[in-house]
């Protein structure tokens, strides 16, 4: 029988990106014993990839900004199916969370009078994103990491979590193994916070790192928790498309915030041709006004390049399909043109967008201060996730909490850029606080030893099949191809039905997966576990997308191209049925309180 190394905590946090670290810091501050388990080394989580900034209505650049505007921008972006309570709390608490980062050592870019500078971003009415050039995520994770290591938490790096454990319906901890030696671990806990990020690796073209395999979504689902809004997967409009090996790597929206424009092969700024009614009043109708907006002119409206991500992504798709794309199948994103408008443009670009300059120079041999980039849509973010209580972030399983990308609700049908980093801070903090409260209010849990042993036995089974089993890398690759092809940016019922069949076949292959070598740092083994999780999230995305017979936010159905007001009243909930089959249902959104309704009306 496999041996387990045993640890016991009040609060266990799974994931050490922005949300996980923020939750752990908060929980540790209450004096409880806190453990953190993460998949990579500390400080490597996908949060480092975030570029643009943290959305918070500090009002440093434009004092017309406040939580009410931020709240209504978030709801508009989410097409009003958001968890309105989360959108409210997020807008109210984000400024304080940003200031707290500064207190812990973060160094944001400054305004002339020495306050935190804020930049424009898609869907935000006023300049709202606190930022550090285009490496805000790195600043955030390093600040949390360097603060967190002195906050009294125990960190288990490079571990795979296999299962959440339950004790009569309540969470009791988690079990998994460490990568280094392949030793099994039991982390017993009174409360667990999932902060495992997203699911981007279910698709072929993605900006997400290898870690993003929907682990938290799958763990929670297996433990009986509800998922919601899984149909909403955000395709970021601007990913690199060439060279082929870097396809999908993100090109920050900050490029457009700084004045970058999108053109097709005819040199036309095609986004001016299609501005949705919902945004007509707030969008510039000529190039000059758009430019003035990016340079801080408060009387100007934003250029159409800064419309919501789903819209921009679809417009790019359309241009490419119509044969007006760039040589490698994207469109042109040009920041170099600003030299017509300002002196020393080259230096300005390098200072404002240092990592973009670096990234293109090194990976594509292209100088963005001189030439346009080629860009196209890339899978970027999942709005869907674990269904949580807006205040406490508790899932439908008692003692299980979720924060950040793995949780659903804040972003509704589509997320605004910059709202994810603030999400991590606001709800990481809340999840940590309420998990600590739960741990204090509830006694110790006991562990089901049988379940523990069964999990270990199952995890080791692929070693017995060895080289005669299915290659886990190949299954992952095939799944990514299928999801990209069949459940991507443009969806239809036929293709999604086909996807469900395909996923079922892949699942059988996953049951036959084989691993060569031993348990020590075996990437094949890790991939085999990841693939199991990806199967669950892929099926969830597909089933939810099938049920929602309309186009809204990030979901575009070619067979139902319009928004249906009726569907605007529902979220889609996914749950594991008693027989193990995936259950999908629509659930009415709770009525929004009058005062919040009034805020939305006022900001229209």
């Amino acid at each position: 029988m496999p041996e387990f190394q045993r640890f016991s905590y009040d609060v266990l946090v799974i994931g050490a990106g922005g949300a996980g670290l923020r939750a752990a810091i908060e929980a540790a501050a209450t004096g409880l014993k806190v453990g953190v388990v993460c998949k990579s080394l500390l400080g490597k989580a996908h949060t480092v990839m975030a570029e643009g900034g943290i959305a918070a209505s500090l009002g440093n650049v434009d004092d017309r900004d406040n939580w009410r505007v931020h709240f209504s921008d978030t709801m508009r972006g989410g097409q009003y199916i958001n968890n309105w309570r989360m959108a409210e709390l997020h807008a109210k608490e984000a400024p304080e969370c940003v200031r707290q980062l500064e207190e812990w050592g973060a160094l944001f870019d400054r305004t002339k009078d020495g306050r935190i500078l804020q930049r424009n971003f898609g869907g935000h009415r006023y300049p709202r994103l606190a930022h550090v050039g285009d490496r805000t995520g790195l600043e955030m994770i390093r600040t949390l990491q360097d603060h967190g290591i002195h906050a009294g938490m125990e960190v288990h790096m490079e571990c795979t979590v296999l299962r959440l454990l339950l004790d009569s319906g309540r969470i009791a901890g988690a079990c998994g193994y460490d990568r280094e030696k392949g030793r099994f671990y039991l982390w017993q806990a009174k409360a667990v916070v999932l902060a495992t990020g997203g699911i981007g690796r279910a698709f072929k073209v993605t900006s997400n790192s290898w870690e993003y395999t929907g682990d938290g979504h799958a763990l929670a689902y297996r433990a009986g928790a509800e998922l919601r809004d899984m149909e909403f997967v955000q395709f970021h409009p601007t990913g690199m498309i060439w060279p082929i090996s870097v396809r999908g790597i993100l090109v920050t929206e900050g490029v457009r915030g700084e004045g970058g424009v999108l053109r097709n092969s005819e040199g036309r700024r095609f986004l001016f041709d299609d501005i949705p009614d919902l945004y007509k009043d707030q969008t510039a109708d000529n190039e000059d006004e758009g430019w003035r907006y990016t340079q801080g002119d408060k009387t100007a409206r934003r250029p159409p390049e800064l419309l919501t991500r789903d819209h921009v992504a679809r417009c790019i798709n359309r241009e490419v399909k119509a044969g007006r794309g760039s040589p490698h199948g994207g469109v042109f994103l040009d920041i170099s043109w600003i030299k017509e408008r300002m002196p020393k443009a080259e230096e300005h670009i390098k200072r404002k967008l240092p990592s973009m300059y670096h990234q293109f120079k090194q990976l594509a041999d292209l100088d963005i201060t001189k030439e346009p980039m080629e860009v196209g849509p890339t899978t970027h973010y999942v709005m869907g996730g674990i269904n949580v209580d807006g205040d406490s972030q508790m899932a439908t399983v008692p003692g299980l909490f979720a924060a950040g990308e793995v949780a659903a609700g804040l972003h509704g049908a589509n997320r605004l850029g910059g709202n994810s980093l603030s999400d991590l801070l606001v709800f990481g903090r809340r999840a940590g606080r309420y998990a600590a409260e739960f741990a204090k209010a509830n006694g110790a849990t006991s562990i089901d030893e049988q379940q523990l042993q069964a999990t270990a036995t199952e995890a080791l089974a692929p070693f017995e099949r060895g080289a005669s089993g299915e290659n886990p890398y190949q299954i992952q690759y095939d799944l990514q191809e299928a999801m990209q092809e069949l459940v991507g940016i443009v969806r239809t019922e036929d293709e999604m039905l086909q996807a469900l069949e395909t996923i079922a076949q892949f699942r059988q292959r996953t049951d036959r997966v084989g691993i060569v070598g031993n348990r020590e740092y075996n990437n094949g083994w890790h991939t085999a576990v990841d693939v199991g999780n990806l199967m669950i999230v892929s099926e969830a995305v597909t089933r939810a997308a099938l049920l929602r017979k309309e186009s809204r936010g990030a979901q575009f159905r070619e067979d139902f191209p319009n928004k249906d007001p009726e569907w605007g009243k529902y979220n889609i909930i996914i749950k594991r049925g008693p027989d193990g089959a995936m259950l999908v249902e629509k659930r009415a959104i709770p009525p929004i309180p009058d005062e919040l309704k009034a805020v939305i009306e006022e900001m229209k």
Partner: protein
Amino acid sequence: MATQAMFRIWRGDPEGGAFQDYVTPVEEGMVVLDAVHRIQAQQANDLALRWNCKAGKCGSCSAEINGMPRLMCMTRLSDINLEMPVIIEPMHAFPVIRDLVTDVSWNFRAKLTVKPFKPRSPDAPDGTWRMQQADVERVQEFRKCIECFLCQDVCHVLREHRKHDEFIGPRLMVYTAALEMHPLDTEDRTKDLRDKHNIGFCNITTCCRQVCPESITITENAIIPLKERVVDRFYDPLKQLLGIL
């Protein structure tokens, strides 16, 4: 560009190991990490390596490529002579776990020995601070660090002399510099730099600066100013003279 290339990858564990050759197809625009991934997926499923972002932002895929400490994700095949086998080894300054993965946990432990950030009281009644962009930029350079530990790998104090117990290495000198030069910080780390972290071991050969994938001017902007602080405090000739008198 060649259509296929040979990669000579070190495989092994703490007990020992050897180079193994793999031939794999290569295409335009590929980086070393792409080739290693392809080998892993098709020929060596259990090949151990670290990687996360594949965009030079997380600093996970550090290795030594043809003898140079580099990120695999930022090393383009078109910059390498593919007529010869491409030699890929784990970093030498840290113990091997398996194949290309090394035990870098020492860096995390050593970081704990540097006194943390301690801000002055807020400048404004609302609890916020005022800082000028110019003052912030100086430190922002250090905060670009992605903790790939390539500078630690190339530093001879660690790599050749194995002074891990006495010296914190360039990465943590940069970390200390970021704290010491932070406009809000009030902590004093000068004595620790001399006594505990042995900044004097660094003889400014600039190897660390040369391998930094973020182009941080480690030696000139971080280490030398810290050395100057130590000298100012403890080795001022005038002060010494006055002390004697």
